[in-house]
């Protein structure tokens, strides 16, 4: 029996693309305990929104996440539209769905590549990112940018999808469907992939529910949960698709769910593009939104994204609150890691498709006796940090 030791993964580590700290207690190659520390990349976006007008907020919200940028802006815009009592045109709803599903395609392909890299299968990484480029090109064609699409505006969308663009997107979709099938086949039959993914970091439906997991992570444990179907927003009520569920509960299950969702997304895209209704793109939105509050849910590629906005009648929000999907999933991986091997750390972390920067938040410490909270100045905080590290 080997001695226990602590293996720090993060805040800087090649397996993590964003800063987050995991301290593993390890016995030989087996993980005994894990300590997750959030808060390395808090950007104060929620607070910053309070001093910007709604249009500016939209672009700030877009930058919460580079990968699900459309998810966040749609969720935010839906909140504001609900408060202002706007009903966006049908064509705008369809375009939001199209961009949202293309985003899901690129996000899942990106995940596949990252997962491949984490298990040392760099060829899979290169191939899936090469094919993801096709999706990004389509997004660039529609919106004018690869990453921050900026297609949403309060009251509709900013750009139209005309005939030639529609043809171009449709012509790429079959190719992407083929590739998705190839990857699903590869991941579920290649011996080395199976050796790394099968029966690792299993959690049952009860566990997944207890930890409050969302999105593909929950669906891979057999929980039938999808905001697109359960609480339809935009034009999802009219879209034909089925929610992919796997009851494997392990890493392979999460890979299968994501890869099959690509196929479903392509179905939605085809339907939406072929049935794109005519009409205007926007309704006139007021600059000053009347007082009120709203919550909106959005099925981001990683899971349910929740936005809350409170308006006070001025041209900027009074409070914005974002619950990114990673926040719901991250504690589940901590538990499922116990008993796994050191070699599985990167892929288990990657299995929830984490987005740490989106999820980071500030902690307010309130003294129990007096109930008062105190603000530290920068200098105090610095001194505190130095003291902490010297101990």
């Amino acid at each position, binding site marked *: 029996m080997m001695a226990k*030791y*602590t*293996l*720090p993964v993060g805040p800087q*580590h*090649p*397996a993590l693309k964003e800063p987050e700290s995991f301290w593993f207690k390890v016995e030989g*190659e087996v993980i005994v305990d894990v300590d997750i520390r959030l808060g390395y990349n808090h950007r104060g976006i929620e607070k910053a929104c309070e001093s910007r007008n709604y249009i500016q907020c939209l672009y700030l919200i877009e930058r919460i996440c580079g990968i699900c940028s459309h998810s966040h802006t749609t969720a935010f815009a839906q909140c504001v539209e609900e408060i202002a009592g706007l009903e966006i045109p049908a064509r705008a709803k369809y375009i939001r769905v199209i961009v949202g599903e293309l985003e899901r395609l690129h996000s899942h392909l990106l995940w596949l590549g990252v997962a*491949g*890299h*984490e*298990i*040392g*299968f*760099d*060829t*899979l990484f*290169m*191939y899936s990112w*090469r094919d993801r480029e096709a999706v990004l090109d389509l997004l660039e064609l529609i919106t004018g940018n690869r990453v921050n699409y900026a297609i949403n505006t309060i009251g509709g969308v900013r750009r139209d999808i005309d005939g030639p663009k529609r043809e171009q997107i449709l012509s790429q979709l079959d190719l992407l469907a083929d590739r998705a099938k190839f990857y699903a086949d590869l991941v579920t039959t*290649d011996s*080395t*992939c199976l*050796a*790394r993914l099968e029966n690792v970091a299993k959690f049952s439906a009860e566990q997944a529910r207890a930890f409050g997991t969302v999105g593909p992570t929950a669906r891979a444990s057999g929980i039938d949960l999808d905001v697109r179907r359960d609480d339809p927003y935009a034009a999802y009520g009219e879209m034909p698709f089925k929610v992919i569920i796997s009851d494997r509960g392990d890493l392979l299950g999460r890979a299968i769910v994501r890869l099959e969702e690509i196929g479903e997304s392509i179905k939605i895209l085809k339907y939406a593009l072929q049935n794109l209704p005519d009409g205007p793109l926007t309704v006139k939105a007021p600059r000053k939104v009347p007082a009120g509050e709203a919550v909106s849910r959005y099925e981001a590629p990683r899971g349910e994204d929740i936005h809350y906005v409170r308006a006070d009648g001025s041209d900027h929000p009074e409070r914005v609150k974002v619950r990114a999907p990673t926040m719901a999933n991250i504690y589940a991986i901590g538990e499922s890691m116990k008993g796994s*091997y*050191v*070699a*599985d*750390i*990167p892929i288990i972390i990657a299995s929830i498709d984490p987005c740490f920067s989106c999820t980071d938040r500030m902690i307010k410490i309130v003294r129990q006796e007096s109930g008062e909270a105190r603000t530290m100045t920068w200098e105090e905080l610095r001194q505190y940090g130095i003291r902490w590290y010297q101990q």
Partner: protein
Amino acid sequence: MSIILDLVRILIFPGLLFTVVFSLFLEWLDRKLYARMQNRVGPPFRQPLWDLVKLISKEDIIPENANQFMYTVLPVLTVTSAVAAMIYVPIWNRESVYPFWGDLLVIVFLLTIPTMVLFLAGWFSANPFGVVGSFRTAIQFLSYEVPLLLAVLTPAVLAGSWSIRDIVLFQQEHPWAVAAQLAALAVALLALQGKLERVPFDAPEAETEIVAGPITEYTGPRLALFRLSTDIQLAVGVALLSNIFLAGAIGPWYLALLLFLAKCVVLVAIIAAIRAMMARLRIHQITSFYWKYLVPIAMAQMVIIVLIKGGVGV
């Protein structure tokens, strides 16, 4: 005069200079093929050299808690032992510049030194990733070494000699011998893949898990030496296998050199493809793969070789 000749052999051909150039070429070939198989452009021809020059010119940092002496000695040791091994490998001829009756064993022995050095390097670098990497290096060493030795033993048993010259000569006289030991060649290639810590057997330096394993703390010129050593081990391994399994070189020296290079290129292409087509295995999966599959295959091959030898009576 003979001292000068020895110095030329050790420092220029087939010693240090030739070995470095040859191993950098093989590194380029490996990276280029790997990149092309992944549909990328790949590095330009001189990239490995520029990488080496860049690393050598970087700042040299020794961690405070690391063992200073070991930190200085180990990188040099790993390169010297790898270059020393290269000197005993025949290149354009049937024999190396210093042939003797047991040179095959000496090469295999010299090749184990860099692995031991890697273990020590991680152990003395005062870094948790380095220590984990060291353990894995040691475990992996115990896994691939037996199949590697069994595979290398096969042609030696067939030829009835530990001398590379005799083995090459035997195979050139009896070309069927090459076909008879293809399984041993496959085992040897997979063991070489493990020795060089390449996918799927790269758990000891798994980038996404333990950063760079034993060489995590190494920077600048020392890291350059470790990388160079890995390249040279690749060159030695490939050159050795092309001799003892693929009948070495034959003909006038330029043709022989071309033939030798062609064999090396084919072998590098095979291990580059292995690297490209698999995911990394966990360390215990690596161990069980070597012991469960490769050792029995190597033993079966040995039995077949002994039977053939008895039957043919060579």
